[in-house]
């Protein structure tokens, strides 16, 4: 899931400038779970903007903001309002904002900051566990991601800087590699640590990535 947090309403208001007519779009996927773009948050932002003299023409919680064709279809229902509006606010992740912007011929501004791909531990508690690096090594690391959880993103074991099992960068965090070691020990798979992980290539991930499974081989 993509974890987001609301920007300060004041900042959102500023990003609207002198524009008056506004449409707010939510997203019923991740942003709803994060309570940053569900029905309640859309209503909340609407109230705030109206007390600050904005005219919120319409609101809609899209099913999946980042689904281009689906959002395009759903946005057709707002066609009339969209022609008259000045700015669209998207209460989704950074991807949803861009999908909506690709569909509409309007200025689109984000209501959220996109933080990480993460897990909902329980209501209101989220944790980052995957950096979407494109080369998953969880199979060798007892399903604990060192790219994300090790402050140095090391692929070949600990740096040696842990004190009392805690990370040298943040004493509140456990050393990811000691966690990996302990879990491999439980699984009786410590030998997985003995193999040297080859030096990684960053050539694929250093520019925008895309997949096209329809392209003919």
């Amino acid at each position, binding site marked *: 899931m993509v974890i987001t947090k609301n920007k300060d309403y004041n900042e959102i208001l500023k990003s609207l400038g002198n524009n008056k007519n506004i449409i707010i779009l939510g997203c019923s996927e991740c942003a709803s779970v994060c309570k940053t773009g569900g029905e309640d948050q859309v209503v909340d932002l609407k109230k705030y903007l109206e007390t600050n003299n904005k005219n919120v023409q319409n609101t809609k919680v899209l099913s999946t903001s980042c689904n281009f064709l689906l959002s395009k279809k759903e946005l057709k229902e707002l066609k009339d309002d969209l022609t008259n509006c000045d700015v669209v606010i998207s209460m989704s992740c950074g991807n949803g904002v861009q999908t909506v912007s690709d569909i509409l011929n309007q200025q689109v501004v984000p209501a959220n900051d996109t933080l990480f791909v993460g897990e909902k531990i329980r209501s209101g508690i989220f944790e980052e566990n995957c950096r979407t690096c494109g080369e998953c090594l969880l199979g060798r690391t007892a399903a604990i991601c060192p790219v994300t959880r090790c*402050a*140095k*993103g*090391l*692929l*070949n*074991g*600990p*740096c*040696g*800087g*842990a*004190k*009392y*099992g805690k990370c*040298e*960068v943040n004493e509140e965090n456990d050393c990811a*590699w*000691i966690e990996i*070691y*302990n879990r491999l020990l439980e699984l009786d798979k*410590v030998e997985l*640590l*003995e193999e*040297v992980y080859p*030096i*990684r290539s*960053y050539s694929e991930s250093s520019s925008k990535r895309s997949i096209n499974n329809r392209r003919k081989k």
Partner: protein
Amino acid sequence: MINSKLETALNNNKFAITAELAPPKGTDFSRILGIAQELFQYVDAVNVTDFQSASVKATSLALCIELANRGIQPVLQITGRDRNRIAIQGELLSAAHFGIQNILCLTGDHPTSGDNPEAKPVFELDAIGILKTAETLMKGIDLGRNELSPPFPQFYCGAVTSPEYSPIELELIQMKKKIKMGAKFFQTQGVFDIKTVEDFSNQTKDMNTNILIGIIPLKSPGMARFMNRKVPGIEVPDNLIHLLEKSSNKTEEGIKIAADFIMELKDRKICNGVHIMAIGAEDNVLKILDKAGLIG
């Protein structure tokens, strides 16, 4: 090319001695070069730290070149914190050009622990990756599989380890990987307990590698307690802290503790040498060596 004195010493089972110096935070190398001049005849190599404690200083390579030009064999310390693979390979080729053979490969402290904590960390290569890189260059190619022009560099590579690390089994796995990637010697974090060295010696016996035990001269009980609390891999036993507390000259007491420890290590033949890290008090290294009977 002159052979590495450190390599020769370790291959001949001589009790090897290295000491660590840091480039200055500034542009004047004279003080540190003066210390190196006094030391060099008594040590097998002088380590030069690479932005020690993730803090801005002159570079390790610059001081290594100054030492090499004076006939003092350095150990170039190189970390993965500030350089990607292009810069690391360039640094290693440059070192080879200046006749610097001894390389110590480290992962490096995180920038947040240093004096420019806002810096973006690199860590593209860790210690194991840097060892692999040096090994690759020695074969006449770079990591991109491009050929180097001859002559190819010759390095004598080492790495670090921490005998007090917990869990030690994990540290031993790391050591084996470093050996596999070309580490010929290890310099350890500071150790203060002979029992730790004994255990470590037994745990690493099968690795057939060279281990230089780290020696940090204590300057005060406060320093010892601080390191126990904050510095990874450091465990100063209480009896040493009491000795320092009772002593009227704490620096001298620290020097004596270090010298006694070195003599015991040498007598009991449980390591291949020592690596002295007199952080900020490099003048004391000579006194330690003298007290340990390693001069003259």
